[in-house]
């Protein structure tokens, strides 16, 4: 039997309604929307524009021309950062961000650093929430962009988008947010939140993989990454991924309607999981903020147990861990590190990303599984034994290994 899927921050299954609406565009409606001299292109173009309108609705954008379709949110993020730098006339331009951003932001910035761009990391608190004063202090006349995610994929922390947008607006600095984790879970409104650029991914909201979008507020310009046929107002050349875009549009429509019932339902499951773990299993901690977090995210540390071994024990569930042991590079989660979680607890962390398919029964089963296996693994853990004897595990020196 396949494990119960609880890794919805990584990706989500395709909603059957999305699949259904995409299918004809993989088959009979195969036209290229740029070739509108005939009915094939016309049909495709119409469908793409309808999808654009669905994305407009989700974000409360003002104008369909503000939506640029891309291949994924990583592309959208790269476009904004590299495109803003390319057009900037400032020498050593500065970009303000935070240490818990997705790699698509942090690694793009790293590359830009080699061209003289300066990354300024605003302070965050122990939940990962950005310090607004720190942003204000960093702003100067070389600041060309503020980029701060809407929600974190590991710890679920929500950022105060509206306040950040307000600051950006007051200082006349464009504000970009990577909103892939937030859409369909919390309301993101580009007008009210004063957002100038926003990255979207379809597959994080029950749409298809390989398609994303960038919201680009009217009046703002970025240099394109791709030159060519001049599609998407010249900002993103390349033949449009019609079926993908249709799917993204439908997923956006459903995401907008999920903000009420479904988000609440998942929030209840999340709380049942978090409270269940904290109450039933001692020496467990919640990583991230207790309330200012994605309705579908629970990130918990089970002290004295290594995360991958706990995942093995919970093989009836598909979840992920911030433990070094599970990553190819043997480094523990940089997000947990950035919010000051000690290595030992990062090692013991499990991320649960709930979604539409999860039920109350799943959580009940999960809690029982966790309780049983945490006990089993702790009985096997020398760290637990030491902690019982009053030894501070974080301070213990492993002098005896011979490396």
């Amino acid at each position, binding site marked *: 039997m396949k494990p119960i899927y609880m890794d919805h921050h990584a990706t989500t299954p395709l909603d059957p309604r999305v699949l259904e609406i995409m299918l004809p565009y993989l088959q009979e409606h195969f036209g290229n929307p740029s070739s509108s001299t005939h009915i094939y292109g016309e049909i495709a173009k119409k469908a793409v524009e309808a999808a654009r309108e669905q994305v407009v609705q989700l974000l409360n954008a003002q104008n369909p021309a503000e939506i640029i379709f891309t291949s994924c949110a990583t592309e959208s993020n790269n476009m904004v950062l590299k495109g803003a730098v390319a057009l900037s006339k400032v020498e050593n331009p500065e970009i303000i961000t935070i240490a818990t951003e997705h790699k698509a932001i942090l690694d793009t910035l790293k590359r830009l650093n080699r061209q003289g761009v300066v990354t300024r990391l605003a302070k965050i608190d122990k939940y990962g929430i950005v310090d607004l004063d720190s942003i204000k202090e960093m702003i100067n006349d070389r600041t060309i962009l503020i980029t701060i995610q809407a929600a974190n994929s590991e710890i679920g922390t929500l950022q105060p988008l509206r306040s950040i947008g307000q600051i950006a607006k007051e200082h006349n600095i464009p504000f970009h947010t990577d909103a892939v984790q937030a859409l369909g879970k919390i309301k993101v409104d580009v007008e009210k939140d004063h957002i100038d650029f926003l990255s979207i991914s379809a597959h994080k909201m029950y749409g298809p993989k390989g398609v994303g979008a960038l919201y680009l507020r009217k009046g703002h310009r970025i240099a394109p990454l791709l030159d060519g046929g001049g599609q998407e107002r010249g900002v993103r050349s390349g033949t449009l991924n019609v079926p993908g875009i249709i799917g993204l549009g439908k997923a956006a429509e459903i995401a907008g309607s999920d903000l009420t019932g479904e988000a609440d339902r998942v929030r209840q499951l999340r709380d049942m999981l978090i409270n269940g773990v904290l109450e039933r299993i001692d020496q467990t901690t919640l990583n991230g903020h207790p309330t200012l977090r994605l309705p579908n995210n629970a990130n918990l540390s089970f002290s004295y147990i*290594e995360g991958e*071994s706990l995942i093995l024990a919970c093989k009836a569930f598909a979840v992920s861990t911030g433990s*070094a*042991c599970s990553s190819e590079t043997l480094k523990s989660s940089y997000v947990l590190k950035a919010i000051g979680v000690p290595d030992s607890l990062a090692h013991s962390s499990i991320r649960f990303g709930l979604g539409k398919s999860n039920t109350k029964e799943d959580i009940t089963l999960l809690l029982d599984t966790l309780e049983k296996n945490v006990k089993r693994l702790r009985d096997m*853990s020398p760290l637990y034994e030491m902690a019982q004897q009053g030894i501070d595990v974080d301070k213990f020196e492993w002098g*005896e*290994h*011979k490396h």
Partner: protein
Amino acid sequence: MSTFEYSEKVVEHYENPRNVGVLEDANGVGVVGNPTCGDVMKLSIKVENERIVDAKFKTFGCGAAIASSSMLTEMVKGKTLDEVMEITNKAVAEALDGLPKVKLHCSVLAEDALRAAIDDYRKNQKNKH
């Protein structure tokens, strides 16, 4: 890393680890930490006439580390100290039908713990005399 990258034997040892715990009457104990990823193994052995008659482990680590520890205790029991000196991390990994490449260092943890436990035993013997 996920279950299906581990051999059946690794999973079997992870799920039913042999010799978990601490020997009450151990005369050699090794505690080692893994500098690569921060994991810890504690191995206690009971030596009689230069032969390991019993061994138990406790491990904080991934599935491969737990399976390696379990396998190691099986491999050392009944062997003389000279014999167990030949046991390397490679031998442990092979006995488990192999480990994923990134997990080979987890078997090093087992080897290190064995060496540390034997060192400890020898130290204890010296102190006695």
